[in-house]
């Protein structure tokens, strides 16, 4: 089943064409990687898909419904969640409360605090933050803040999760842990994932399919192996052939 489908999506900021007629799809159950150099339009694509701002032209359909121009909260409540590249934890709230907010206001819209709390604990277990549930988010390390960012968006119970560079700034051990977590989210929770990532090893390691953006245009799409050998991608982004 086609979960999200972007058709001729463009976004201009004044004279800057951040996205130009980009078509993209993500099928249910996939993990799709979105790569490209800085300024290629990856985060813009996320912002347009999650409703931070509307596209200049083009349409986005999610689960068959046209969501173009909807507000972020409406899109979240329909089952599309995102994380932010620069994480935005609610710093003075506890880790638990951060995650409960996803449960209370996301797709589930739980009415009862007690139920939300139990469900939030389950998600904290999954991402490995349960021992830190009671401390304020401001006391977390960057790696833990990134876990929290993922946990909070998972708490909205999404069908599709957009992960914006969750591996950036993590050390090798943390990166491996995060990759395991991403796989678990797909397998354990059945959440489809579209992820922006620069760490090529990780992209190739977890993604079924990769989309490459360059100056706002889609220049390639395919299996990780194909992308790594694609001439246009090597020229535009990778610089040299990547050993897989």
């Amino acid at each position, binding site marked *: 089943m086609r979960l999200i489908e972007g058709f001729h999506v463009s976004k201009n900021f004044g004279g800057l064409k951040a996205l130009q007629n980009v078509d993209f799809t993500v099928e249910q159950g996939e993990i799709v990687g979105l790569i490209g150099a800085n300024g290629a339009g990856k985060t813009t694509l996320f912002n347009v898909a*999650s409703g931070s701002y509307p596209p200049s032209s083009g349409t986005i359909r999610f689960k068959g419904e046209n969501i173009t121009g909807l507000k972020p*909260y409406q899109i979240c409540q329909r089952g599309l969640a995102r994380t932010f590249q620069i994480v935005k934890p609610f710093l003075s709230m506890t880790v638990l409360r951060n995650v409960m907010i996803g449960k209370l*206001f996301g797709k589930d819209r739980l009415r009862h605090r007690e139920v939300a709390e139990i469900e939030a604990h389950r998600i904290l277990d999954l991402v490995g933050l349960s021992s830190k549930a009671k401390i304020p988010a401001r006391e977390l390390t960057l790696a833990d803040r990134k876990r929290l960012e993922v946990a909070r*968006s998972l708490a909205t119970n999404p069908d599709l999760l957009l992960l914006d560079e969750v591996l950036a700034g993590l050390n090798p051990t943390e990166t491996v842990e995060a990759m395991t977590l991403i796989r678990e989210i797909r397998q354990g929770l059945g959440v489809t994932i579209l992820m922006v990532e620069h760490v090529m090893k990780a992209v190739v390691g977890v993604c079924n399919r990769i989309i490459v953006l360059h100056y706002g245009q889609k220049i390639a799409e395919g299996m990780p192996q194909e992308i790594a050998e694609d001439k246009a991608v090597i020229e535009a982004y990778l610089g040299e052939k990547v050993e897989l």
Partner: protein
Amino acid sequence: MGTRKHLLGAVGLVLIFLCLWPLLASDYYVSVFLDLLMWIALTASWIILSGYTGYISLGHAAFYGLGAYLMAMMWTQIPYVFAVILAGMFSAGFAFAIGFPFLRVRGPYFVILTLGLTEITKYIFINLEIKLGGTVGRILMMTPGLHTLYYSILVVTVMATATAYFVKNSRFGTGLFSIKEDEDAASALGINTSFYKWLAFGISASFPGMVGAVLALRRSYIDPYTVFSPIVSFQVIVMAFLGGLEDVEGAIVGAVILTLISEALWARYPYTYMIILGTVVILIVKFMPLGLVPPIKSRLIKAMEKES
């Protein structure tokens, strides 16, 4: 559970005391308490928007003045109680009408915009009054007695503090606090931030409308310069920062302390009182940025945990 019972008991005792106060005290002390209650109502209602979402509003004076003028227009035409309720509803309605464009701007721009709102409403009323009556001020005749006004303000204050309390502990309040922490993240997590801010703005504006309506009768003379004075907004903000602007206890403590200090200093040091007050406020903002209540509260909680 035990603490909750104690809390309810304490609130009940305070309420009984406040109800009996006019029977025990002289008119001077009743009017001091009327002032006290008025500032509590204004501050507690102010934190519903500004304390919980971080949208610092200087617009409270606009709604206060609006309420006062509505009362001046309705006085002797409509029964007193209805006039107060109507003033509150009208203030909330006005806030709802201007809320969507106003709440699109954030941070310091919102502060400036709401300051402008107070000024604009002031000049609208100045011009309106000159057109209608030829003069600017209004004298209100046959106003209710001190005790009636005291009990009216008491009711409004109880409503404002209860609303601030229940909003904070509700799902709605959780949404408001998320907006304060990070509005974009709140929106991405499914919170309808525009609607939440708008609703908080309207609720917050209804109380200064009612307070203004009652206080117009208390003063029995109003003009736009005094009822739309930005000092009202400033005073509310100072009280909230003094006590702590994230919960109703802070609003109450801040309002009580500042009103009592003002009252005491005003009589004894009429010339230096503003300087003393300013110094006190600077010291508190500098050394207790969260206000007086949160640090004391967390210490109390820790002490109680130790005991049990």
